[in-house]
């Protein structure tokens, strides 16, 4: 007698398959190339993973996909962690992805490279954009964790270098999912309050994961937008974060940021002292030099004036002598006299027109007299 084969409904069979498959492939790791990626507005991701001879459908639900820091796209070689699931309605088995990593490198490394490339293209790292730091800031803002070695080191070095620094600490978390939002808020608040002239964004050393908030796009954009120049001081000298690239200045360590942000007070004071000393010395040099020159000039002037005066005297005497010699008075002095006709006051040079009885006036060196002509005789 033939045993009647058990007749199952499609649903029953599918259920059985589902049970078998899902039990057998509860945890799988698959590598392949992403193709036919669809990302509808629901936020879930649908794609296929394929290699040269096979492919498997994949679904990457929104919640899990949000944790992926890098951007995945068609053609990318990835490693997917997940389980096999059966979608009963369509009779499809698929890989339900819980986690995805790029093949050959860490997810964060890739995310870092991708964001770096994107922001570089937008010009966020341009050297021309970087603002100069104030030489002697009136107040310094420090955005960092209020506890731990970092803030202690910064305060210690500021104290050593300057003693009287004004520091405003804005405490934030510098690790974990909340960190980037708090850092962005801190940068915005500090910009709004306008109390500080420069900002230090600091964190101690850590793994790439620990430092991750400084590689987030929102932090990069907040630094870019800040009107206050920002010094980044994140991790150790070998750690480079996106924040470092955007910041106006990168300090290799938090301690170095404290060295950069303020000059050494002692060096400044010495410099001012030296300048003042040079200043006084230069005037001390210049005044005597000029005095000497004034003396020289005066002497030369007196000499010139003196010789001029001397020359003048000689000349004057000469002139006076000349004048004297020319003056009629000089002639009289030598015993000569001048005679004029009284009637017309004409100087008499000849007796021709002189008649007997005419009156004449004679001028001597000292005084005059009038006389009457008694007789004339031509020479």
């Amino acid at each position, binding site marked *: 007698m033939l045993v009647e084969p058990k007749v199952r409904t499609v649903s029953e069979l599918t259920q059985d398959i589902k049970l078998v498959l899902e039990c057998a492939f509860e945890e799988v790791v698959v590598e392949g190339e992403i193709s036919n990626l669809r990302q509808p507005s629901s936020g879930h991701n649908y794609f296929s993973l394929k290699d040269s001879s096979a492919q498997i459908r994949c679904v990457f639900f929104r919640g899990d996909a949000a944790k992926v820091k890098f951007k995945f796209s068609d053609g990318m070689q990835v490693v997917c962690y997940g389980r096999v699931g059966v979608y009963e309605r369509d009779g499809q088995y698929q890989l339900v992805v819980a986690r995805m990593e790029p093949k050959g490198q860490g997810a964060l490394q890739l995310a870092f490279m991708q964001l770096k490339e994107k922001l570089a293209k937008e010009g966020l790292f341009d050297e021309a954009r970087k603002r100069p730091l104030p*030489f*002697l800031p009136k107040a310094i803002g420090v955005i960092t964790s209020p506890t731990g070695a970092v803030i202690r080191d910064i305060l210690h070095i500021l104290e050593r270098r300057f003693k009287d620094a004004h*520091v*405003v*600490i804005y405490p934030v978390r510098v690790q974990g999912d909340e960190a980037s939002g708090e850092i962005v808020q801190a940068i915005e608040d500090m910009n709004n309050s306008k109390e500080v002239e420069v900002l230090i964004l600091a964190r101690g050393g850590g793994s790439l994961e620990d430092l991750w908030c400084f590689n987030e796009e929102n932090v990069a954009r907040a630094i870019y937008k800040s009107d206050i120049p920002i010094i980044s001081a994140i991790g150790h000298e070998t750690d480079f974060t996106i924040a470092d690239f955007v910041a106006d200045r990168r300090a290799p360590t938090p301690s170095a940021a404290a060295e950069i942000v303020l000059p050494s007070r002692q060096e400044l004071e010495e*410099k001012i002292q030296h*300048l*003042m000393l040079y200043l006084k010395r230069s005037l001390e*040099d*210049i005044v005597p030099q000029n005095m000497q020159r004034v003396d020289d000039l005066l002497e030369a002037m007196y000499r010139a004036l003196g010789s001029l005066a001397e020359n003048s005297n000689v000349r004057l005497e000469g002139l006076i002598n000349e004048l004297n010699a020319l003056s009629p008075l000089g002639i009289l002095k030598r015993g000569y006299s001048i005679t004029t006709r009284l009637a017309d006051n004409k100087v008499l040079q000849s007796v021709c027109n002189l008649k007997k009885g005419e009156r004449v006036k004679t001028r001597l060196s000292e005084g005059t007299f009038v006389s009457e002509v008694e007789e004339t005789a031509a020479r």
Partner: protein
Amino acid sequence: MGFEENLKKLEKIVDELHAEKLSLEKSIEKFEEGVKLGDLCVKALDGMKKKIEVVSKAKDGKLKVKPFEKEEE
């Protein structure tokens, strides 16, 4: 005017005086300006006060600052 500008001006004046190309009158003028600048620099340094503050945010979003107390080591 800022500390750095004053310091740079002072440096420039010292250089100019050192070059000895100015008239005596100009030299004395520059010297006097230099002394003033030096005084301003010193005063700026002396005027700085040590202050370490920490920001906290009130519920209404307003920022408050209070003195920072170093944690015990």
